């Protein structure tokens, strides 16, 4: 069997562009480089809660939002290095059973923002298996854009907690806008948008 054609390779920017086409009023919780990527692709999505500042905390922030606003769908765009810093979150989330939580982990196998060093166990770690064992309602791994395109609409309405590892290949580095992502006005805009939503 031949390798997947490069046009079908799971680049983060291309997968986020697919995601952005399906997003309406969901809360998006992206982390670090995923946050930079998402900001570049969907800069006007006010319901974006940028989870940066303390690595590993995106899914915990998302759980807080999901429990506080059960009427809203919350989508986490986690990183693999980030998730490894907070693996207990998988058990905490599974125990709370938030039906409105969809947890993506962008699995590129490296600490992209910190020199490109490999994450421990990059060649054998199976995040979906971890989430499944922790008790997520369902967990899956997606490795092609075609598969992502085919499944994303269903994932966004499926009862959670659902976990999906996105097996990524390297793409162009996202532009960096730390001023926006770290800025107090961004958090204030999110809070205002959430209040009105």
């Amino acid at each position, binding site marked *: 069997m031949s390798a997947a054609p490069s046009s079908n390779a799971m680049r983060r920017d291309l997968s986020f562009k697919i995601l952005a086409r399906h997003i309406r009023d969901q809360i998006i919780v992206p982390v670090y480089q995923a946050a930079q990527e998402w900001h570049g692709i969907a800069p006007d999505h006010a319901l974006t*809660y940028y*989870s940066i*500042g*303390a690595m*590993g*905390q995106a899914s*915990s*922030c*998302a*759980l*807080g*939002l999901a*429990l*506080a*606003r059960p009427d809203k769908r919350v989508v986490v765009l986690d990183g693999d290095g980030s998730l490894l810093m*907070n693996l*207990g*979150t998988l*058990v*905490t989330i599974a*125990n*709370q059973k938030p039906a409105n939580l969809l947890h993506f982990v962008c699995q590129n196998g490296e600490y992209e923002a910190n020199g490109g060093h490999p994450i421990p166990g990059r060649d054998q770690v199976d995040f979906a298996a971890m989430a499944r064992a922790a008790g997520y309602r369902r967990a899956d791994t997606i490795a092609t854009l075609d598969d992502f395109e085919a499944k994303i609409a269903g994932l966004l309405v499926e009862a959670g907690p659902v976990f999906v590892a996105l097996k990524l290949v390297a793409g162009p580095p996202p532009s960096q806008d730390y001023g926006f992502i770290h800025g*107090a006005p961004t*958090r204030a805009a*999110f*809070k205002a948008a*959430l*209040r009105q939503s």
Partner: protein
Amino acid sequence: MSADPITGAAILDQIALSGIEFIVSVPDITTSAGLLWPIVEDQRFRLIRVCKEDEGVSICAAMSMAEKRALLLIQYTGLLDSINALRSAGCEYKMPVCVMAGLLAKEPGVPPTQSKSFGVRIVEPILDAMQIPHALMEDAGDERNIRPAIDAAYARSYPTALLIGRQM
């Protein structure tokens, strides 16, 4: 003459009056019998058990964005372990995180900074360095400080710490 000890029931009443809906917790023997076990049965609160205390910092901070009030009930060791999350979400991003931390092994009647326990001694200086207000809950009547502290945290949008000074 020593003061009467603060009670768990008095603390929980003040927490409820402060508008706290969610209690996020890792168990601590200092507050297990007096607070956490009663919270399990207390219909005024929803208990969220977390695996590690920094998860709780993030959960409480995020809930504030949805205008929900939460309290993180932990041991001081968990507070020390969560300094980076508290630094980021609470101090730098200026989000309200209300922490109630048991001072394990603090001697009743002894100020935390004069405890024989090194860990207990450094808690208040660290909070001071982070400009996080703190109050000691040890004697009957101390619970009167809970509601003003929580209200101030949400009004100011900054963390606060309530330190439980004796096992209950």
